[in-house]
C-alpha cells in the first residue's frame, strides 16, 4: 500500500509507544550539533528519506532529525540522524 505523507496511516506511527520522538531540527540547531561533535553532516548516522518516520515528519534529504529516546534507567538520550535520499 502506498501511503502519502501526512496521510492518517503515516501519522499514526508517531503515536506508537515504541516510536521515539522525532523532529526535524532548524538550520541553526543543526549547525550547532555539527559544531558540538566537530563533524560534517554525513558523519552523523543516516536515516533514509523514505523511512516511514522520516516521511511522517516530512524530513527531506539534507535535513537533520533529532530523536529523543527513553533509556531503561529512566533517563533520556538525544541522538541525531542525517536524512539521505
Amino acid at each position, binding site marked *: 500500500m502506498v501511503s502519502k505523507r501526512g496521510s492518517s496511516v503515516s501519522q499514526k506511527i508517531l503515536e506508537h509507544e515504541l516510536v521515539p520522538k522525532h523532529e526535524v531540527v532548524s538550520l541553526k540547531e543543526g549547525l550547532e550539533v555539527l559544531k558540538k*561533535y566537530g*563533524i560534517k553532516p554525513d*558523519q*552523523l548516522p543516516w536515516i533514509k528519506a523514505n523511512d516511514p518516520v522520516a516521511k511522517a515528519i516530512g524530513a527531506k534529504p539534507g535535513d537533520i532529525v533529532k530523536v529523543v529516546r527513553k533509556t531503561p534507567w529512566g533517563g533520556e*538520550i538525544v541522538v541525531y540522524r542525517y536524512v*539521505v*535520499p
Partner: protein
Amino acid sequence: MTVTEEEKIVSMIKFGILSPEEIRKMSVVEVKSTETYDEDGLPVPHSVMDPHLGAIDPGHICPVCGNSIKGCPGHFGHIELALPVINVIFIKYIYDVLRAVCANCGRLKLPQKDIERGLKYYRKLNERHPYLARRFSEYIKKRAIKTTVCPHCGYKQPKLKLTKPITIEEYNEETRSYIRLNPLVIRSRLEKIPNEDVELLGFDPQESRPEWMILTVLPIPPIAIRPSIMIETGIRSEDDLTHKLVDIVRTNERLKEHIVAGAPQIIIDDLWELLQYHVTTYLDNEVPGFPPAKHRSGRPLKTLAQRLKGKEGRFRGNLSGKRVDFSARTVISPDPYISINEVGVSVEVAMKLTVPEKVTEWNIEELRKCVINGPYKWPGANYVVTPDGRRIDLRYVKDRKSLAESLAPGYIVERHIRNGDIALFNRQPSLHRMSIMGHIVKVLPGRTFRLHLAVCPPYNADFDGDEMNLHIPQTEDARAEARELLKVQYHILTPRYGGVIIGGLQDYISGAYLLTVKTTLLTKEDVMELLSSAGVVKELPEPAILSPRELWTGKQIVSLFIPPDFNYHGKASISAGHLKCEDIECFWDSYVVVRTGKLLMGVLDKKSIGAEQQDSFFYFLVKEYGADFAVNFIDSVFRMFIRILEKKGFTLRLDDVAIPEKAKNEIIQMLMESFKKVQEYVDQYVKGVLEVVPGRTAEESLEIKILEILAEARDKAGEIAVGYLDPFNHAFIMARTGARGNVLNLTQMAATLGQMTVRGERIWRGYMGRPLPHFSVNDLGPIARGFIVNSFYSGLSPTEMFMHAAGGREGLVDTAVRTSQSGYMQRRLINALMDLYVEYDYTVRDSSGSIIQFLYGEDGADPAKAPHGKPINVERIVERVIGWKL
C-alpha cells in the same frame, strides 16, 4: 643507488581496469618467444624471462632503468593476444552489463529522458554519498535488465544465459536454441556503449571502460614477482606464474600461426578455448567448474588469485599478520608458589630474550657484569650497541672483559631478561583482551612457562600440553603500558560484565572450606606454618580455645587478612539440601557473615571466593580495596588454602563413591519400579490408548513420558546414593563446595548413569527397530534404548558401554562444530568492529570520525564498573553504611 629519491604524499588511490593502450604504454618488451633460455642458459630476448623485465641477479644491470638488483623496481612486458579472451574476475559484471544494454545499438535500455535525469542525479550523489550512488546504479541496472525491448532502436532483446564459469549464451529465435557468444562479439557489444551510459552503470568511463574487461593485451609481470629458484644441483626451477605465462605464450603463438595459415575454424576455436583456459587459470586457479592447472607432480598451481586469497594469502597472512622478534613459545605448567602477576620463564628462554638497556652511570657496573657473562651465561647480554650505532654480537667477541671495560654512558646493552622485567603473555585463540596480559618475569629452572592457577580461566588454559607465547616489550613506552594497563591484577574484573574472572578455583575452594570449617582447630604450630606459607608475620589473635590447649579456628586465621572495616553477608555453596540456610540464623555454618573484618560465621567456598560469582565476598574485596589488595589476598590467603590441603591430605579415591549394599538394593528397587511404569506406558502405546501430549504424535508422547520417568528415576537414585555418603568424603566435599564436580557426577559414579541420549532422543538408530542386535526388534524398554543401570563404580555391561559411547560422541562432535563456527563469527565481528573507539566526549566513532553512538552504550556506563548491567548496587551501599544487609 641511482634512484632519485623524491618525497611525495599519496593523497588518493583510484582503482580501475587497465586499458590495452595503457598495458602497451607501460610495457618494455613484447613477449612472443616460447623458448625461455638458450643453450648457454641465458634468457632469450622477448621471452617471459627477458632481461628487460628487471634485474634479478646480483651484479646485473637493468637494461631499462640502469639500476642493479637493489634499485630496479622491475618492469612489465606484454603479450598481444591473437584473439581476445574474457577476464574471469569480471565475468559477473560482463554478464550484467550485457544484459543491461541493447544487443543491437549498445544503449542502456532505459528511455533517453530517464538516462539524462538519472545521470544528473547519479553525479550529484557520487559527490556526496558514493555509497548511495553505488546503490542507485545497482537499481538502474536492475531496471534496465528487466526491459525487453530497446527504447532507443526498438530491437527485441534476446535472452542471455551465463553458464558457469565463463560461457555467455544468447537465445536464437530462428534455431530456438542458445548460441555461445565469443569474446570478440562480447567485446564489440561492450565497445558500442556510450560513456554516459557506462557512467550510469557505476563505471568510471575514463578509468574502466567495460570492453577492457575482455583482454586483448596481457601484461607480463616483472620477474621479481616470480623469481626462479636454484636447486642445489644447479637446475633452475621456475615459479608457478612463469609456468603459466609460458603456457599462455605458447598457445598464443600457435594460435597466431594458425590464423595466418588460415586454418579451419574448428582448430582455431579449440586453440582459442585453450588460450582462454590458460589465461583464466593464470588469473585464478580455483574457478569453480574449471579443472585447476596442475604441476607435473599433481600439485595445483598457485596463481595470482591464490597469492592474495585466504588465511595464508598476501592480505591475511602478510599484511594483517605480522611476525615478531623477542618472543618465545613453550609448554605451560602450573606453579602455585608464584604470584598471579608473575610468569615463570626458563633460563634457556631468558638467555634468548633481551631488553635494550641504555648505559648510565647508575647501571654501568651491573651491565658490565652482564657483558662479561656473555650470551651463554644468565644473566648476561647478547649484543652491545655503541653510540655510533654499531651492533656488537657478543657471541663473536673474544675478550668480553675489555669490551665491558669500554662501556660508557650512551652505549646500549641488550641484556638478558631477568626477574622483575615485564612480559606479555598470550594464549591462542586470543578471543578477548584477557588473552594477552602483562606478567612480571621470574626466571626459574625447568623448560616450561609457569603460571599461577588462578589465571587459567582468562586464558582458558590447562596443562594437558597447552603452549603459550611470551613477548618482551622493547621500548620504555611499551613497558610502561604493559605495567600500568596490562598486568594481570588489572584484569581481575572482566570488562564484559564487571565480575571477577580471576578468583578461587578447584583445590583453592576445597582448601578454603577445609580451613574455615568448624571442625578445623589449629595449634600454634599449625597457625605459624600457615602464616609462613602466606609469607607474612602477624600477631595472633586470642585463641578460640584456651584449655586444655590453645587452639585457633581457621576463621580466625582468614580474618587476619580481611580489612577491619569490611562487612559481608551471603550464602555459601554448601547451602543446599538439608544444609540450606537463608539468613544469619544458620545452624549448618552455610551462611557467611563478616563483621568489621572478622569472619564470624559460615565456610568460605565457591560462592564466596570463586571466580565468576555474583556479589561475592571476594568480589567486594576486589571492588572496594583495589587490585593491589586483591593480588596480595590471592598470593597470601589462597596459598594458605593450598597449605591446609597439603597438611591434611586431600584426594579422591574409589571408596569415596562406594555405597553400601543396602543402598544399592534400594536403588535397584526404585529403578525396577520406574521400569514397570515405563512398561505400562509402552503397553498403553501398543494398545493405542496412551494419552497424547498436545501437538505431538503418540510415539513422541511416549518418548517424552519415558524420558521424564527415567530422568526422575536417575535423580532419585542420586538422592539415595548421596544420602549414604559421608559429608566429609572428599568427592562429596568437592561437589558440595563447588570445587569440582556436581551431584550428577556423583550419581553417575555411585548410583547409575541413567539415560543416554543422542539429539535429545533415546538411542534408537542402528539396526531395524533396535539399536543393537542384542535386543529384540521393537523393544521400547529402557535397557534396549540406552538406559544404563550400572554406575561407573559397578562398571558397564558391553551394551551399556556402546550406548555410553554413542551419547559421548555427540558431545565431542558439537564442541568441534561449535568452535569452528564461533571462530568464523568472531572473525567477522572483529573485522566489522575493530576500529571503533570511544572519543573523549563519550561518543563512539569509527576510523573516519563518523558517529556510531552518541553516548557509549547509550548510557555511558563502563560494563567493567557496572556489574551485570546495573550501574549501582544499592544494597551493598546500604550494607557498607550501616554494617548489615536489610
